């Protein structure tokens, strides 16, 4: 097994498995977020569920480890890949052989990571650590819970920075979408679950998935901007 961990395919296997895991997380996260479109009560209920459900609590550190491994292996592989060509070409042609996204996954990953940090500071950190006056408890169906809706709306409808945050969040979602256009199919290829036929299917599904995630996460700030 130690040989596997240090082999190129082994390392990529971890990239692929963590990537697939993170994609499942994205789907769950998006589903939860979309509750926002149905008003404060729906969103707060979902948010409360996510904050208290024991399985979700157990999965949180696993998710964190997933992110960290995905980033660590990406960095390791990228450094190795750069070393593999000590002298670069004087002239290269772009776009002919492969898509821009497939060649720039590390950069796109960086975009997603920056967004992730901001996102954690904006929400997760406030909800779990520092707290915020916007989170003052409200009653929903006779149960008291944090007003997560208030926090979200507060951010995107902030009179000074609301528009900036909205745009940054949309940018982050689009970056993530592009990351997924290559990442989805690629993770299946790496674990060997592809051939000439399935590649066509998986790339198509991958584009749909990327669109779903990218558009899905963009809808929320857009929705709040419009309803403003």
């Amino acid at each position, binding site marked *: *097994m130690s*040989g*596997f961990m*240090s*082999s*190129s*395919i*082994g*390392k*990529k*296997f971890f990239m692929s498995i963590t990537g697939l895991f993170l994609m499942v997380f994205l789907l769950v996260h998006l589903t939860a977020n979309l509750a926002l479109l149905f008003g404060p009560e729906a969103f707060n209920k979902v948010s409360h569920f996510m904050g208290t459900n024991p399985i979700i609590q157990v999965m949180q550190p696993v998710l964190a480890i997933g992110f960290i491994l995905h980033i660590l292996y990406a960095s390791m*592989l990228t450094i*190795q*890949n*750069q*070393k*593999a*060509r*000590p*002298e*670069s*070409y*004087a*002239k*290269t*042609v772009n776009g*002919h*052989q*492969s*898509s821009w996204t*497939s*060649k720039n*996954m590390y950069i796109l990953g960086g975009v997603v990571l920056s967004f992730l940090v901001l996102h954690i500071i904006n929400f997760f950190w406030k909800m779990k650590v520092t707290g915020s006056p916007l989170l003052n408890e409200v009653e929903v169906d006779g149960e008291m819970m944090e007003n997560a809706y208030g926090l979200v709306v507060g951010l995107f409808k902030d009179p000074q920075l609301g528009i900036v945050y909205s745009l940054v969040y949309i940018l982050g979602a689009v970056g993530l979408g592009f990351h997924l256009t*290559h990442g989805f*199919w*690629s993770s299946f*290829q*790496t*674990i*060997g*679950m*592809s*051939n*000439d036929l399935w*590649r066509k299917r998986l790339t198509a599904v991958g584009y749909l998935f990327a669109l779903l995630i990218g558009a899905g996460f963009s809808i929320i700030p857009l929705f709040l901007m419009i309803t403003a």
Partner: protein
Amino acid sequence: MDLKLRVWRQKDANSKGGFENYDVQNITTDASFLEMMDILNEQLVNSGQDPVAFDHDCREGICGMCSLYINGRAHGPDTEVTTCQLHMRKFKDGDTITIEPWRSGGFPVIKDLMVDRSAYDKILQAGGYVSVNTGGVPDANALPISKIDADEAMDAATCIGCGACVATCKNSSAMLFVSAKVSQLALLPQGKVEASRRAKAMVARMDELGFGNCTNTGACEVECPKGISIAHIARLNREFLFATCKE
């Protein structure tokens, strides 16, 4: 037509190289790219200069010896050809053509445009064969093989070992080359017997030799002169994972 050439010159593996500019005149569009290089060399020899060293042999696209990164593309601006099959009609009068050697840590430059591809031999030595001795084998028709599998094995087996996949990959990964052999032999019953051992040994050797990691960009299959599909890389991944599971 008249052309300006920007050619990488490097005395030997230990020297520092650089680009030199040359002009060639009256090149017909019917000439192959390497014939244009011959004309340049004849010109250089006649004027007392050192001709440009480049690898070539069969000049019909099968031996895999010719290389050259031409105007930013492995084997130049045509699809499914080697440099020797590239013709000058793909260029226009007055063009400047940049000619570089394959660039990869796995393929050090020997001289000018020649690189050392013995890493490929070493990878195949690790297990790119069926371990049978001469003689004492069963009749050729003793074992029927599905035509579909045999055809797919042949698709992979057409690899000429030129190195365009490594040269064109942004990570300089040798996965397409390795997968072509692993896939060919994994598809045939003769090769299945030692498929696990082969996949592990060849990947381990590949990793030792300084090639990068595959990130599935697919550039290799676009520039492969034999059009070998990266579906074979998926099969290699599969073979490797199964082999690990069997441990």
